[in-house]
């Protein structure tokens, strides 16, 4: 039983990492990783919201009527986001200012709605809490990895502390902390993940990038929408050649 819970945690952290494997929640990933501090703030805030909303949604899963479940989930999530916003405004005002509108935009983070739809609405409270924690930590980990690359190479600092030598001599690329650098680092990071282990993830991604994983599925009512079709097509494109290569490597 305990093993099972551990698996739930690890699944979110590595195998089904929401950002790097499932490619969900790209907006905050790109926007909040220009410094380690803001990435940490975003990751922790999203994790708290994710755990709370998962617990509440899973506790209410038998009460919420199926037809209006998406609006219900949105209200629950928005409630927790507002709570986190108020707490952060009160106790961490500088971080609150740094995160700006992105803090409120946790509401429309696909990871949170996606987990509510895919996991919390079908599983028990404790399992959902662990799933939320695992996914949240996976999100945090991915954000920190990206932010570290961007801040260290882009500003020669780490969480605000200057890295000696590199910082003084101007050996850094400021463009990495700006918008283009976000796209670039994210692209390269996903390419690395593809290179390492997409062979394993192929089936999983196919099954997870389907309509079930799409937050709009409830409103949409179709079995395959253009967005998920594109996503699945992308996933296939990404994984097929890499898979071939891996086989080639073994041979």
């Amino acid at each position: 039983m305990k093993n099972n819970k551990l698996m739930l945690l690890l699944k979110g952290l590595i195998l089904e990492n929401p950002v790097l494997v499932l490619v969900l929640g790209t907006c905050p990933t790109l926007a909040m990783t220009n410094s380690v501090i803001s990435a940490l703030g975003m990751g922790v805030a999203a994790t708290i919201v994710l755990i709370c909303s998962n617990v509440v949604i899973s506790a209410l899963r038998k009460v919420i009527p199926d037809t209006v479940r998406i609006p219900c989930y949105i209200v629950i999530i928005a409630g927790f986001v507002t709570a986190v916003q108020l707490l952060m405004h009160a106790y961490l005002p500088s971080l609150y200012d740094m995160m700006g509108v992105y803090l409120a935009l946790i509401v429309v983070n696909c990871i949170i709605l996606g987990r509510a739809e895919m996991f919390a609405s079908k599983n028990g409270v404790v399992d959902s809490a662990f799933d939320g924690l695992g996914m949240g930590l996976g999100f945090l980990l991915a954000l920190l990895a990206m932010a570290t690359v961007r801040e260290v190479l882009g500003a020669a600092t780490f969480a605000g502390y200057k890295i000696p030598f590199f910082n003084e001599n101007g050996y850094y690329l400021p463009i990495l902390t700006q918008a283009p650098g976000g796209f670039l680092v994210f692209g390269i990071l996903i390419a690395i993940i593809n290179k390492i282990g997409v062979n394993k993830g192929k089936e999983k991604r196919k099954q997870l990038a389907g309509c079930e994983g799409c937050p709009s599925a409830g409103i949409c009512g179709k079995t395959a929408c253009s967005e998920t079709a594109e996503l699945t097509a992308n996933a296939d494109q990404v994984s097929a050649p890499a898979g071939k290569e891996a086989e080639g490597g073994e041979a």
Partner: protein
Amino acid sequence: MEYLKQLTLILMAGVLVNNYVLQKFLGICPFLGVSKKFNQAFGMGIAVTFVMLVATAVTYPLYFYLLVPNKLEYLETILFILVIAALVQFVEIVLKKFIPALHAALGVYLPLITTNCAVLGVTLNNITDGYNFLESMISSLGVGIGFLLAMVLFAGVRSRIENCPAPECMKGLPVTLVAASIVSLAFLGFSGVFETLLA
């Protein structure tokens, strides 16, 4: 005249300098998901612009005539997302009933817009930036056009990427992101243009 200049600046800032997709990272999911074909990208861009305008027209008065008098400003996130979700459904129903041709063209994209962070983002930003109603509408229009521009430009870039021989592990999403980075770099240049215009 001075005011007109200010409005133009707000509009152009939304389109070019503060481009939501390429500079502020809002609305990345449709940007990456629906930008494969030019027609789809254009349809999505128009639908988003339309919803942004309607959403601003509704959320702005709600904020100032419902939330502010009752001192409930902190509820803006909950209220706005609900309004947007309801609005998208409503727009879809109205379009289906009265303008079926437009519904056939945009219908597919409408449900996806509910969870588009650019729409919620622009309504929230209009409030934080302290714009009045006209300025808010102009700013939403600018942001919408900026989104459309980014989608259409990127659809063009993407149709060329499809045929280029990328390294195996870069194929698909990674090479798309790298291309997005280069397009974003081009947009970064506009901020310099604006500084000279303002000076």
